[in-house]
């Protein structure tokens, strides 16, 4: 077992463990902090796949910006009550049933796809590096890229309009 494999397993355990802790923590602030740990370990996986740009963007955007906003909202709403009101029994059953069937469908859909059968190339391939990614984004996928930026712009305008209304 090389150092890469060792790191992979450590990161995997960390990712899954912290993801589970997100769900099992009673305190919403703790959940958010565990989610940040999850993002960090996913970024670690990106680095192992030689996708440093993706790794750092994942940290900047998710851990650095979106999670801060989550924290803002949770802290201002002061959700740290000792016990959240218990849901009804049938609601729990319905949740488990629908979530479980969603997982079943996803696994069934993904298990035979081509990308699952391909072996992961560790530390090779350079699509995650900033040079190659920029080339691909601005040459091959320029139209979808620009359209998505227009989408972001319209979302920003919408947010400003809603903010002005009050």
């Amino acid at each position, binding site marked *: 077992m*090389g150092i890469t494999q060792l790191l992979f397993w450590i990161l995997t355990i960390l990712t899954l463990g912290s993801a589970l802790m997100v769900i099992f923590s009673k305190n919403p602030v703790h959940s958010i902090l565990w989610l940040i740990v999850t993002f960090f370990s996913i970024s670690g996986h990106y680095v192992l796949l030689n996708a440093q740009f993706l790794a750092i963007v994942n*940290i900047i955007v998710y851990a*650095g910006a979106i999670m801060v906003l989550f924290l803002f909202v949770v*802290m201002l709403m002061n959700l740290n009550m000792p016990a959240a009101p218990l849901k009804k029994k049938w609601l729990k059953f319905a949740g488990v049933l629908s979530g479980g069937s969603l997982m079943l469908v996803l696994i069934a859909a993904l298990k035979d796809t081509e990308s699952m059968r391909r072996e992961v190339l560790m530390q090779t391939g350079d699509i995650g*590096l900033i040079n190659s990614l920029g080339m691909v984004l601005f040459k091959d996928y320029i139209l979808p890229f620009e359209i998505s930026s227009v989408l972001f712009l319209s979302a920003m305008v919408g947010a400003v309009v809603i903010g002005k209304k009050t």
Partner: protein
Amino acid sequence: MTLLAFDWGFALEKLVLIAIVITVSLVVAMYATYAERKVAGFMQDRLGPNRAGPFGLLQPLADGLKLFFKEEIIPSNSNKFLFILGPCLAMLTAMMTSAVIPWGGKVELGGRMVDLQVADINIGILYIFGVVSLGVYGMMIGGWASNNKYSLMAALRGASQAISYELAMGLSLIALLMLTGSLSLRTITEQQIQGNWWNIVYQPLGFLLFFICALAECNRAPFDLPEAESELNMGYHQEYSSMKLGFFLFSEYINMFISCTIIATLFLGGYDMPFVDEAKLSGIAALIVGLVALFGKTFILIFIFMWIRWTLPRFRYDQLMNLGWKGLIPLALFNMVITGAIVLFTMKAH
């Protein structure tokens, strides 16, 4: 056992380098507190600290010792784990940024080429942004875990300030990156050494914007709203005592040192001594000249940081937000468009 097939000399070299970098940042930050009080004294026509040791030079040690011996208080209604985590995170993120700064060129030591940079990654600047954006957490978690409304208010203020000014900071850097065509701090420095001018000549507006945003990110006056003691009693670290408070205060000085180093690296040529051709010097001499140049620039910038702090009064919250969103961001966008147009027309593309 392939696990041991690893360049242990490399690991050792990096460990020693990290230890040196961290020690230097701590010592500089320690004496930055002394320098701050001396500068404040000078600006206000006082003497400043002059009791401990010659010229008061032992004052930082005395302050540190005092903080260590103070009573450690954890408020009973606070979230204990997060209360301790807050200052730790603040210190950690302050230290992590130094990893990608090139402190000098390569030197040959004992048959190895030693790179005076902990990690020369090709996304150096983005790494700095990532760590800076995490710096908010120490403040926010500390402020929230204290279970005090003033702390929470200050933490929210600090976080929104940091987020707002990060945007302008990023935008002001994009223009610089268009010119350099690289995100690696090593490459950016080497381009400035080989080229005729430092980046500040090509990007005066970018430099100014970056400098202002760095002030705001370090929570330095006039942007020290998270610590506005007249409105918030003390700020996000109100409930903290002893060395945990010390960590919060100290991490700010480390942040100041590191951000001055980054400004020096990005805009002022890094370890490039003006009017000296480093290529003609021998290895060790070039190294010393480079270190002197980098630290000289950094200390001048730190002095300017202090000068601004003791000259300007604090912004009001709405003024702060207006400046960030309506002043700096449009200016940064303007700078970006101009730079982009010039790069396009002169075809200085890399």
